[in-house]
């Protein structure tokens, strides 16, 4: 029983990182109808920025906040500079853009900080959380920070004027323009937020997987899986999907005989495909109700 609780909690901890990645992907997907393959590389780059800032002597939390801010600005800049000009281009052109972004960010990261593994500090330490055997303090920290982040986003999107305008702009751009919303900037804001969320995920997972230019590769796959499982049309669904994938992964690694570390990824993905076989819009994706 303790093993089960332990595995579920650890699953939620890594799942919260998948949830963040899933959420970033969904935010951009809703804004421009494309999947950002480079989301993971952008998050890795952000984690390196944080690492560099700390190297220069800035304490953890100021570096954390500075990194989130820089990532936000970078997200906006990428939208303005690269994807806004591609807004009316074909799907394949956009896909090529994302692949280019992936390759560029990845090699710039490698060139700047090289490919050797680096240690990344955790502000929460790695002792047992509140003396409990079930979860360590960094895992608790991952869950806590993600929880705060989600609460912030929920309030921002649900209850502020800008949040309302953003949701309107991505759901029905033409109508949004007709009520005076600058849709272009709302999309850029979405990119900024997605990039910031990715930065938080990158900084939280870096102490666990160690910092290196390809560290988010596997994590983004789980993030995509979470997003698709929850439903690409639903930010809340993406978060739940990410958490579920984290828990699935751990339970399969522990309880399926012979699965171990090698097979837990394929088994988790196979489960997801099974779910999508019966619910193509994802678990929480809405088949939009509309009367004509």
């Amino acid at each position: 029983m303790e093993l089960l609780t332990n595995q579920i909690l650890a699953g939620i901890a890594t799942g919260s990182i998948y949830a963040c990645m899933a959420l970033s992907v969904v935010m951009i997907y809703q804004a421009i109808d494309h999947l950002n393959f480079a989301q993971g590389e952008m998050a890795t780059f952000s984690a390196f920025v944080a690492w560099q800032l700390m190297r220069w002597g800035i304490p953890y939390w100021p570096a954390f906040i500075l990194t989130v801010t820089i990532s936000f600005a970078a997200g906006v800049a990428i939208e303005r500079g690269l994807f806004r000009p591609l807004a009316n281009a074909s799907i394949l052109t956009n896909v090529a853009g994302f692949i280019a972004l992936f390759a560029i960010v990845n090699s710039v990261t490698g060139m700047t900080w090289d490919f050797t593994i680096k240690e990344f500090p955790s502000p929460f330490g790695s002792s047992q959380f509140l003396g409990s055997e079930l979860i360590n303090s960094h895992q608790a920290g991952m869950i806590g920070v993600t929880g705060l982040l989600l609460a912030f986003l929920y309030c921002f999107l649900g209850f502020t004027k800008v949040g309302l305008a953003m949701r309107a702009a991505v759901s029905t751009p033409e109508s949004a323009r007709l009520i005076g919303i600058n849709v272009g900037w709302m999309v850029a804001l979405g990119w900024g937020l997605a990039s910031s969320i990715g930065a938080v995920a990158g900084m939280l997972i870096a102490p666990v997987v160690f910092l290196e230019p390809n560290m988010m590769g596997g994590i983004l796959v789980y993030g995509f899986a979470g997003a698709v499982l929850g439903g690409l049309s639903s930010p809340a669904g993406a978060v739940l999907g990410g958490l579920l994938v984290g828990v699935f992964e751990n339970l399969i690694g522990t309880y399926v005989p012979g699965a171990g570390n090698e097979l837990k990824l394929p088994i988790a993905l196979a489960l997801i495909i099974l779910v999508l076989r019966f619910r193509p819009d994802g678990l929480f994706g809405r088949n939009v109700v509309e009367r004509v």
Partner: protein
Amino acid sequence: MSDILEVRELRAYYGQVQALHGIDLSLREGSVTTLLGANGAGKTTTLRSICNMIRFTGAIRFDGIELSTRSTEKLVRLGIAHVPQGRGTFTRMTVEENLRLGAISRNDERAVTGDIDRMYAHFPKLKERRSQQAGTLSGGEQQMLAVARALMLRPRLMLLDEPSFGLAPLIVRDLFGILAKINREDKVTIMVVEQNAELALELASDAYVIETGRIVMSGPAAEISNNEDIRKSYLGY
């Protein structure tokens, strides 16, 4: 009365295809003007040009301000509310959120809340459904919502694109009654594009008839609806 909107030599294009061939229109402040014509005559295109949503040449002045150099989202803020064809409600948001969105470019939060209550007084059905997703409303209710949302801008000019489309006759009567009231009480100038000429001419004070991208007739609404020749050849009733 002075003209609030002036359109001169408007030519609009969809790609290589020219849809409007030099339209001239004037809207008197405080009037209700209707633009009538068959499917494909260029009614929607005219409205879309006014809001700079399509490529065009010519002059469009609102209260003396040239609109063609302004983006859609900026010119809307001058007080031009456009209810597009198909209503353009935010279907996945609640009725109340839709109303708030109508006022998103305003900065007087308190007055906005008051205006929402006024809309609920105009449209009691919307109040009942305030926290429901707009997409679940009936067609008539959605059209009411679209009008209410447009009014939340406190517009000086309201453009309506076939508001009667797909609605039951009784609901259309209701809607046009409300439009007349809004025009009378809130002094909003209204331009309504319609295929339902009979009803539109009842509501309007001025009318234009458009055919294949050209204005073929204009004048006081009463005159046009009394002229049997025009009615038979252009309006089909």
